[in-house]
């Protein structure tokens, strides 16, 4: 196997990339100046080495705790619970939210062997220490996301914290990550108690 094949086979491991695209990307990198290709390699390396899970909210960040958890201007009385770290960018980009986040790391799905223990639920409950007054559950509007929301609602229920859910309006079955900012801002402002 040549180094070309090596790189192509690494590309095929990325989501949405098949054999053909993998070779197209590889050959593109062969055509550009070598220093540009190396810059890409260094960027990947730096990211892999420096990005960590935040020990408070499980967000991906270069610092631990992450920039949300340490930012003094964020509203510390609200936590928005999302499935993946990539959902944070979508919600924060909507401009309608100034509180903290918590990344679950997925949603309940027995078919995939994912139960509450596989998710960052305990660390969420540990954060409900008196300062937090509201938890907004922003899991995806899928069957699994809804079940996860129900589960969290019941788990948090007895702790004197208000639990709300993003209003509908997000496309059902869609991914939060791909919803536009206006839609998310509306879903946030229209959130309702569970």
């Amino acid at each position, binding site marked *: 196997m040549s180094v070309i094949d090596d790189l192509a086979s690494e590309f095929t491991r990325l989501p949405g990339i098949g054999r053909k695209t993998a070779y197209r990307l590889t050959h593109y990198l062969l055509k550009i100046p070598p220093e540009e290709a190396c810059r890409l390699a260094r960027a990947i390396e730096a990211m892999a080495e420096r990005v960590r899970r935040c020990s408070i909210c499980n967000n991906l960040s270069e610092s631990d705790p992450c920039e949300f958890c340490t930012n003094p201007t964020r509203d510390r009385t609200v936590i928005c619970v999302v499935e993946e770290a990539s959902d944070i960018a979508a919600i924060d980009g909507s401009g309608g939210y100034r509180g903290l986040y918590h990344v679950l790391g997925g949603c309940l799905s027995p078919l995939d062997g994912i*139960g509450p223990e596989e998710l960052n639920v305990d660390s969420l409950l540990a954060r409900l220490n008196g300062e937090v007054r509201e938890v907004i559950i922003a899991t995806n509007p899928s069957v699994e996301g809804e079940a996860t929301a129900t589960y969290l609602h*019941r*788990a948090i229920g007895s702790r004197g914290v208000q639990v709300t859910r993003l209003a509908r309006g997000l496309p059902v079955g869609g991914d939060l990550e791909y919803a536009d900012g206006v839609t998310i801002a509306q879903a946030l402002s229209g959130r309702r108690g569970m």
Partner: protein
Amino acid sequence: MKLGHLEPRGGLEKGRFFGYFYRVFLQRIQLRNFRNFEDETVDFPERGAALIGDNGQGKTNLLEAIYYLEIFRSFRGARDEQLIRFGTDHFRVEGSLVEAGGAEVTVAAAYRREGRRKKVTLNGDEPQRFGEAIGRIGAIVFTASDVEIVAGGPAARRRFLDIILSLVEPDYLAVLQRYRRILTQRNESLREGASPSELAAWNHGLVDAGCSIIEARARWVAEQRAGFARYYEKISGGQQASIDYAPSIPKPTGDRAAPIDRHGWIEAFHGRLQRLAERERRRGVTLAGPHRDELKFRVGNSSDAVGLRSFGSAGQQRTAAVALRMVEAETLRAALGGEPIIMLDDVFAELDPPRSERVVELLAAEEWGQVLVTSPKPSEFALMGDSLAEYRIAAGTLRRV
């Protein structure tokens, strides 16, 4: 009984018919590698066609292909792979419809074995959601195997309800798919012996989607009960039969006269799950919900009526099956605001001559739209009059004669 007297009456503008739009008809069907058809294109007249061919030549296959464009699945319950002609890797069906105003609509479906890819298009474009293309042609098939709906297991009856409701209720299919997904997840979590709190997370969605299904089914049966009895009585020449919805969730009690509201169903469903919790955990499967509903058919006078499935004669069961399709046609007619395309797959062979004649009379009374009839024997069509164009089917080829 001739179709002759069904010509649009003089003075009526074409396209309008007693308040109903005299709507869509199938003008052309193109088949590629579908069952035993290799590459066939056939045009049909607006009135319809009589398709004659020996056993095993492709009559049912052709109707299966046409109805595929209605529900994008085989009406025989075959898997998509089985529809691909032996030795090939994909099939394609395209139908050109002419609407009441004369506009043409094409509905096409293709399926490739590799990657199990199904592609549906409406006028060449893929619709956003499957549900948009479903029921677009407005068709109904009467087949000899319909008797299975009445005489077979309950799954066939639920499938019947699900198909007709998916065709006429805008959100039904989406809710059904949601329900099935939740059910699979919940069953898996029961099998794994999940904690009660994890299990409870699935209950909310199960009950929510489940109650939408129950409500739609209950409403449909309530609306169609009288129609079913009327059709059965007419076809059988005066006998009685009834249809009742028997949901797996016990009907909420209360004021008998008042219609049962959603809230009542939701409470009843949750209550049932609570009572069954222990058994569900032992068995590892969800024991209550619309996936266990029944549709009950009974024959005879109300005082001594008996279950059709266990006690009905073969003729009574066949009659009930035809009456059920008649009710389905009525549902489509109301939803479409016009006549569905009616396909009759060798049904008269199974009914005695007087019953067959009354079926034709009933259909005629509804001022039917396009009709496609199949039979191995040309003589069967005597019943339908000689107004239908004749086609011969042999070994997957179709020719007008």
